[in-house]
């Protein structure tokens, strides 16, 4: 009844090497942490582990490892293609920068515990796995692997009320939404009889109008999965947790979370919807969920950008901004349901995610740099006159703000360009127009940040320069500019990323 035990070659372990190394490294460190008193070394070892993993991921992405034609591992559970590699790279870079910007912050707020880094690594592994899942059960497990450490990290600053509260909210709502996801998975399983995306897609594409029950199961399942993943990526109307959690969590955690949760969430989103569930609508040739996602994208764009305008706290502002940016990636996702556009949409989403990861972590890192030890000092007033006190910090922040606005020569522009292009390709012009309009609106609040830093004078005290955080900032700022100046780097990277079944 069971086939012969698989060989190493069958398992194709090499393809999953980065995530395996990362998880193992984290597990070892979990134990070793007990014996390391100076938590600096835990941070350093974590960074090393992430670094090793990243190097391997880069080699894989550059086609330097021969990993076989099929590109699957672990008997089809694990998808090892260019998409996976790019997600790996982005997640790992986020993790590395997350570690860099955390150390001093944790130190000065008396939070320097070893498990912080370990949890961070585990959640990165979760995000990586989400990008490579080829099976709904994998999606669920990796999602939880991503989320649970993040719940803990948000509350790591106990007994501070804000931190605890944000962790609690995040946890309860996260669990609530994963139950939607699980139920959706169950229904899809009920309709397709398999959890493997490759088998689901066959059903999804061949299902006819007559098989009403199955069809409805599939549709409702897809809808519930959308809800579950929509929560993770903070799509409106599943976004309510975002501002509270982002504001309450320690800033480096927010920085890391804002990036890695989106990377993982959208990677899974793309895998599930574009690869697994391109259900064709009646009488059309695009997937049914295109319209649904269009609605979500439109809501997300509008709400995120409009509400962000009125924010006074920078963390909260960036939280709404991250909601808004989810909207732009949702545009790409929606475009992914249109035949022939799936691949370019996925590429656009990847480019956007990469650009966003650098920019957003950088922006939060600046906030972390100016935050005081009692976790105040992150308001608009506190950055007034920053250009005089800390010119380089202000300069970096301006770069991030311009990138988030989508001004050319920054990564943000490249991401938006790709996304709008995909939308145009897919015939979603109204959505592209909305995206462009809302990015003009976004200029309002991003520019206000720059304005406060450069044009206003303020007397807020800014913490001392922090060495590792600065290096993290340099990397993110450089990344933002380099990706903006030399977009072909990204283009080369994502060119072979291919997900689409609809051609």
């Amino acid at each position: 009844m069971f086939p012969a035990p698989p060989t190493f070659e069958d398992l194709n372990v090499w393809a999953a090497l980065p995530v395996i190394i990362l998880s193992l490294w984290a597990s070892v460190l979990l134990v070793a942490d007990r014996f390391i008193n100076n938590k600096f070394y835990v941070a350093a070892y974590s960074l090393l582990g992430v670094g090793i993993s990243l190097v391997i991921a880069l080699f894989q992405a550059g086609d330097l490892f021969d990993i076989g034609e099929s590109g699957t591992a672990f008997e089809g559970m694990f998808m090892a293609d260019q998409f996976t590699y790019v997600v790996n790279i982005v997640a790992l870079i986020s993790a590395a920068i997350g570690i860099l910007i955390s150390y001093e912050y944790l130190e000065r707020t008396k939070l320097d515990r070893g498990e912080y880094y370990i949890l961070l690594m585990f959640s990165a592994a979760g995000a990586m796995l989400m990008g490579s899942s080829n099976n709904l059960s994998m999606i669920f497990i990796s999602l939880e692997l991503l989320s649970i450490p993040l719940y803990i990290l948000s509350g790591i600053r106990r007994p501070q009320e804000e931190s605890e509260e944000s962790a609690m909210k995040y946890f309860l709502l996260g669990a609530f939404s994963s139950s939607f996801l699980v139920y959706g998975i169950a229904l899809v399983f009920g309709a397709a009889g398999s959890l493997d995306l490759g088998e689901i897609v066959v059903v999804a594409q061949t299902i006819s109008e007559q098989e009403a029950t199955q069809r409805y199961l599939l549709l409702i399942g897809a809808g519930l999965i959308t809800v579950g993943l929509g929560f993770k990526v903070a799509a409106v109307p599943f976004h309510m947790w975002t501002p509270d959690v982002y504001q309450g969590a320690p800033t480096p955690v927010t920085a890391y979370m804002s990036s890695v949760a989106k990377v993982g969430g959208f990677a899974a989103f793309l895998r599930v919807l574009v690869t697994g569930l391109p259900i064709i609508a009646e009488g059309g040739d695009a997937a049914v969920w295109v319209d649904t996602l269009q609605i979500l994208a439109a809501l997300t764009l509008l709400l995120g950008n409009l509400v962000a305008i009125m924010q006074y706290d920078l963390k909260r502002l960036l939280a709404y901004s991250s909601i808004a940016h989810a909207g732009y990636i949702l545009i790409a996702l929606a475009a992914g349901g249109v035949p022939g556009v799936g691949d370019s949409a996925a590429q656009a989403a990847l480019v956007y995610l990469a650009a966003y990861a650098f920019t957003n972590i950088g922006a939060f890192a600046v906030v972390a740099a100016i935050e005081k030890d009692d976790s105040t000092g992150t308001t608009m007033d506190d950055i007034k006159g920053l250009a005089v006190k800390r010119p380089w910090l202000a300069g970096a922040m301006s770069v991030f703000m311009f990138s988030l606005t989508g001004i050319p020569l920054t990564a943000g522009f490249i991401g938006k360009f790709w996304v709008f292009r995909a939308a145009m390709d897919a015939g979603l012009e109204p959505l592209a127009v909305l995206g462009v309009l809302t990015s003009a609106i976004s200029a309002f609040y991003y520019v206000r940040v720059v304005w406060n830093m450069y044009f206003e004078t303020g007397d807020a005290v800014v913490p001392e320069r922090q060495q590792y955080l600065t290096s993290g900032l340099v990397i993110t700022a450089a990344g933002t500019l380099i990706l903006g100046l030399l977009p072909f780097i990204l283009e080369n990277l994502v060119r072979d990323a291919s997900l689409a079944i609809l051609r």
Partner: protein
Amino acid sequence: MQLENTGVSIVSAVLFSPLVGVLVLLFWPRLTDKQVRIATLINTLVTFAFSLLMLSQFDSSKGMQMEQVDEWIAGLGIYYHVGVDGISIWLVMLTTFIMPIAVLASWTGIEEKVRLFHGFLLLLEVAMVGVFVSLDLFLFYIFWEVSLVPMYFMIGMWGSKDKVDFFGREMEARIYAAVKFFLYTVAGSILMLLAILYVGNKAETFDFMLIRDLMRSGQLVFTEETERLLFVGFFIAFAIKVPVWPLHSWLPDAHVQAPTAGSIILAGVLLKLGTYGLVRYNLEFFPNAAIDFAPYIGALAVIGIIYGAWVSYAQTDVKKLVAYSSVSHLGFVVLGIFAMNSAGIQGAVLQMVNHGVSTGGLFLLVGMLYERRHTKAINAFGGLWKIMPIYSGFALVIALSSMGLPGLNGFVGEFTILVGSAGSDTLDIWYTVLATIGIILAAVYILFMFNKVFMGPVTKQENQELEDLTWGGNWYELSALVALTVVIFVIGLYPKPFFELMDGAVGDLVAQLDATLQVAMK
């Protein structure tokens, strides 16, 4: 379609030579303010020298030339593609010429954060030259947007110290102006981004030359409706930048609040990005829509000519007066462009240069006065000619050039534009008649300003001690004015080479437009 990579072109040297200065200013450990100024001046002069070299190599018998192509984002058909033709070369020359003047204009005016300011100046130069030389829509858009950022900072950080009453709340006027400038221009350019994306997707490349070939060969055709929408997408972005009446509301704020160098560059070059775009993209890509819209845009231009002149006459602030005069002058340029014949377009291109020189000069003059007197109110002056004869002499020449006195540069441009519009197939003769009234009005407001400031007896005690220009005392001001004046005379008396160089490019464009027009008229 693919383009072959080429070697490095002199155009790239012009484009990126200010970047050297940016890097130096960023990373050189210790520089005094004076060294910063000198380094920037040298850098801009070197750039100007490069552009002169480029001019000397220009072959008026060829169209687009000195092109450089490098593959950039191959998957999307995006290239690093730069080059110049008879239209863009003059605007590049204008930019590289205005920049040293802007540096000289801020020689003593800028005393805070000198290094940053000059860094922004040089960055702005890269962006502006980039807009003129880029032959790829993607590249163009990048430079277009980048040009915003330094100007935003220049206005916001080094702008005037005025306060405005902003609906009950006191506010720094420069900040309001900076933000307004930024938002208006961004709002315009996003529509253009959509249009660019659409065209690029349709053509499967973003390269200007390839798209142009596709369109001319009929391989890329838009429906009437689409073409109009795309035209509007591009037009609004450009119109805000120009600014075409009634989108000019940001201009008085930005001009008045900007530091002198900022005003010079804004008036001198930045506004031309819009008019250049109209010629390069709107006319080239969407001739049918352009013909359809020409009467309406021409009407806006004419209204702008008269309205701008009329409104500037009532101003009490010298700088605001000059700012509104730009609305009027740029109205002529737009009128010339949408006359859609050779005379109109060549006049428009030359007038872009002229306006850059003369209005840039006026802002320079106002800036000098402001530095000496710390006011821009017209009433604060009077009789300066007696106190500062040399300064006033230059002011006279530049004011007359702005007024369009024959023999000076402004006239050549305005005349050619009006000749074009008078015989235009797209614009009625009445447009020309009304626009010519604008020439009368130009005399009215310019002479009003000149009389109030420079003539009459000296009544204010503060004005008695104002310092005139001398080589020993303020060589930087004098040399900037001399340079401007020389150009004013050269273009005014001998514009032939200017027209000669652009004749090929414009002739080519007009031939296309004429063909479209012939079809449209049938």
